[in-house]
């Protein structure tokens, strides 16, 4: 930023020292009208944030945390109103402001960074113009404004500050868009920053970078931040103090260290215990009182037959190669996790396996249905497969909102594949559908409901029941738990684990959450830019040594444990355990030295060789 800004920054530091609250929410209650009755969504919520402090508001979906964040900017969702309490930001009573006062407040004192920057930016406007727009209230001359835009762009770490202001939002990645949103928020030099799930839509590596940026900037500028998040890892990383909300009420409010080390309220304990940890050797099971036991992973028997084999699978989208020569196998009852950043090709590969897009080259085969042992060809679209092969591989989806047809009742969703694959006749189909609904631990009474009448977790279970209807050998689970609250996520993961044991099911489990992967997977394949860079049994991969890319993914994982004040960069230039040169192949892997592409570490753990001179994140640092 230009030298002209320095004095204000210094002033704020002085403010910070005096520790007078900049944000004060006092017994705030908000209600909305539904069907003639008032429904309270926020009940008597109070908290304060001193200057320079970061306060996190944590809760599961429906806890009212976003509503509280909105009131800090004087925003209420349509149909809701404040029924009591006060909100003070930078000494102003926000709820008493008129339209002009609110505009002034938002222009000078408080700024918002939302969850999805892609939606917040105008698609038809160049980045530079959009940032400039938020400078307009300052009344600077044009030349100075553009100067400021350039310094802001540089400050939020966007590459090529001169060129990027001329780009349009769709030409930027998700992480870059979020950086633009942060630049816009900082443009007016606010005193308070409201961060509403700022990194939820981003993958782990990008998330870590954005959090570093925000932490660094608010430290530097002495910003007071209110962070709304469901992710306890993010909160532990960022917040000084934490307010835990549940169903509109504050259940606990404490300093970050105190809260994470000695949570007082049972709900907080339960929430904390539900978060999967990267150190768990299996799925965690959480009791009502928050006690945590790790369920031992059921090992795949040594003699388990291979059920799917993929060899040199390549998938092109036009000239873009999404998947580039992947060779992987899957045994019966095994959970294979595909891990990688967005754009790594993991979903493309899985969808191809499910028959949605035939591979450009390579072979995919399914074993166990025809007697000759040669297996059935999967390298075709779903329609090219015989019905009996088709039903053996089924999909479960990430987004519970779109995975079910909103016009069809639950039973219909399950009944359709049963009928389609000819697994039940007209008279038996309802009975089978009920069984399946019961198998995914849902109340069969729900089978007459429409999807909109179910919770996210219930819908996700119906999606799983639909996948099970074809009596599959392999279920491709594409980020099935990503959109769920942690406690629900834990129960859905437990369900998947149970199903696999009962039915000897194999899963291709796509996830970017390494802690979840550690809990459920037997084997892990790390993908980057369409290639598998590392593959092996889950414990071997998590214990290392690793491909540098895997190490970077693991370093970016945020655990719900306080790291102290926050503010330092957390993506380390990790020490490289291996350089990829052939002389470094560990002893005990006889064939390792012969293979020009892979380092074999034994036990099925192999790592793709890399160029020791290239930066490990060959993906340019342009997030």
């Amino acid at each position, binding site marked *: 930023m230009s030298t002209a800004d320095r004095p204000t920054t210094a002033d704020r530091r002085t403010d910070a020292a005096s520790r007078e609250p900049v944000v004060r929410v006092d017994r705030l209650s908000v209600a909305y009208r539904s069907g003639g009755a008032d429904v309270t969504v926020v009940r008597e919520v109070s908290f304060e944030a001193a200057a320079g402090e970061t306060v996190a508001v944590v809760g599961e979906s429906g806890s009212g945390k976003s509503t509280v964040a909105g009131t800090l900017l004087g925003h209420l969702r349509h149909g809701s109103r404040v029924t009591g309490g006060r909100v003070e930001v930078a000494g102003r009573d926000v709820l008493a402001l008129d339209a002009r006062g609110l505009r002034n407040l938002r222009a000078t004192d408080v700024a918002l960074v939302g969850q999805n920057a892609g939606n917040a930016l105008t698609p038809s406007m160049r980045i530079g113009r959009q940032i400039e727009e938020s400078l307009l209230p300052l009344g600077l001359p044009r030349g100075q404004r553009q100067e400021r835009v350039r310094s802001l762009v540089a400050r939020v770490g966007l590459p090529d500050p001169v060129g990027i202001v001329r780009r349009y939002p769709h030409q930027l990645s998700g992480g870059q868009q979020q950086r633009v949103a942060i630049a816009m928020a900082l443009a007016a030099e606010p005193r308070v920053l409201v961060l509403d799930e700022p990194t939820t839509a981003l993958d782990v590596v990008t998330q870590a970078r954005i959090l570093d940026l925000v932490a660094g900037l608010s430290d530097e500028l002495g910003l007071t931040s209110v962070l709304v998040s469901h992710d306890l890892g993010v909160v532990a990383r960022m917040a000084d103090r934490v307010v835990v909300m549940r169903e509109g009420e504050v259940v606990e409010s404490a300093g970050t260290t105190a809260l994470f080390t000695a949570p007082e309220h049972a709900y907080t304990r339960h929430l904390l215990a539900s978060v999967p940890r990267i150190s768990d050797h299996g799925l965690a099971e959480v009791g009502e009182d928050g006690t945590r036991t790790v369920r031992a992973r059921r090992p795949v028997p040594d003699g388990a037959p291979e059920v799917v084999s993929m060899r040199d699978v390549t998938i092109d989208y036009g000239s873009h190669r999404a998947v580039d020569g992947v060779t992987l196998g899957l045994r019966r009852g095994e959970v294979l996790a595909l891990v990688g950043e967005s754009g790594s090709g993991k979903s493309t590969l899985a969808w191809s396996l*499910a028959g949605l897009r035939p591979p450009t080259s390579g072979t995919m085969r399914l074993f166990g249905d025809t007697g000759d042992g040669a297996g059935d060809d999967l390298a075709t679209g779903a329609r090219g497969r015989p019905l009996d092969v088709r039903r053996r591989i*089924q999909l479960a*989806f990430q987004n519970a909102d779109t*995975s079910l047809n909103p016009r069809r009742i639950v039973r219909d969703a399950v009944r359709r594949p049963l009928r389609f694959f000819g697994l039940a006749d007209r008279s038996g189909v309802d009975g089978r559908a009920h069984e399946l609904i019961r198998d995914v631990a849902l109340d069969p009474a*729900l089978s007459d409901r429409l999807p909109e009448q*179910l919770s996210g977790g219930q819908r996700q279970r119906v999606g799983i029941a639909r996948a099970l209807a074809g009596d599959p050998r392999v279920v491709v689970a594409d980020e099935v738990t990503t959109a769920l609250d942690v406690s629900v996520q834990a129960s859905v993961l437990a369900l998947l684990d149970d199903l696999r044991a009962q039915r000897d099911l194999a899963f291709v489990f796509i996830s970017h959450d390494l802690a979840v992967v550690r809990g459920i997977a037997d084997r892990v394949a790390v993908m980057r830019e369409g290639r598998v860079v590392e593959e092996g049994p889950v414990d071997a991969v998590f214990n290392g040594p690793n491909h540098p890319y895997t190490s970077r993914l693991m370093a970016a994982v945020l655990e719900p444990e306080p790291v102290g004040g926050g503010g330092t960069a957390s993506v380390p230039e990790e020490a490289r355990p291996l350089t990829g040169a052939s002389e470094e192949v560990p002893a005990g892997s006889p064939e390792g030295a012969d293979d020009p592409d892979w380092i074999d570490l034994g036990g099925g753990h192999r790592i793709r060789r890399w160029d020791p001179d290239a930066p490990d994140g060959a993906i340019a640092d342009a997030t």
Partner: protein
Amino acid sequence: MSDPSQNRAGDGGQGAGPAPATGALRRTLRSLTRSTPAMVGLGLVALHVLLALFAPLLTPYSPTANTPDQALLGPGADHWAGTDALGRDVLTRVLYGGQYALVVSFAATACAVALGTLLGCVTALRGGWFDDALMRVLDAVLAIPPILALLVVVTVLGAGPAVIVLAVTIVYAPQVVRVVRAAALGVAPLDYVTAARARGERTLPILVREVLPNIVNVVAVEFAMRASWVVLLISSLSFLGFGANPPTPDWGLMVSENRTAMVVVPWASLAPILALATLVVGLNLSADGLSKAWGVDRVKESS
């Protein structure tokens, strides 16, 4: 999580229970009845339907029989809207004219919307070269002015209700395709459609089971909107002498027949114009009311 009571609480009480479809219906009806323009529109359309249906009971005259001694009368107790040059009661012909206008328009709109919906959904689901090719062909059809296209079809195949229905279908189906395709494109990438594709279902079952139920509101609004255009177009065609043949009672034809006597018996021209205008306005208002009740975005149409 699998506790049903918790779920019920989340519903807010409204529309809960085992029959959600009636809940949606009730919501639509409530939204419609609260909107005055929508009620006026639906009222006008209903009035026209009733009048056309009960025309034989409402008037003692025949719509086609000539009575030369009664020609060119002004409005009076026997003939409320007067008579035309051939002595036919104008009001009678207007009432019977509604039958022709409504039946032919309804049939033509239904055909155009049905064909357009089918093609729009298929092209959205198929995508690829099929989509490209079909859309370019339709662009070409859209480039021809409707009235010109209609005239060509009618000249080649001869007049008659069936030909008019066919001609209107050809002219309007491409526009319906565009609207429906846009709506279907919003549904096609959703996971439940993907799931059906992964099962290897054919395009038609996917269309009927997964896509159509979710765009039925768009189709219904499109139907109402399109109907008002079709009514106008068919009347224009009759006015130009290519639609209904005399002595069929038809509004466009009546205006055309009586416009030379406009100064003598103004009501012989004005009455059919009034009838046509109220029907079109009614259809338009109903379409608007429906689209608001269902939250269908009419702006999409221009895409």
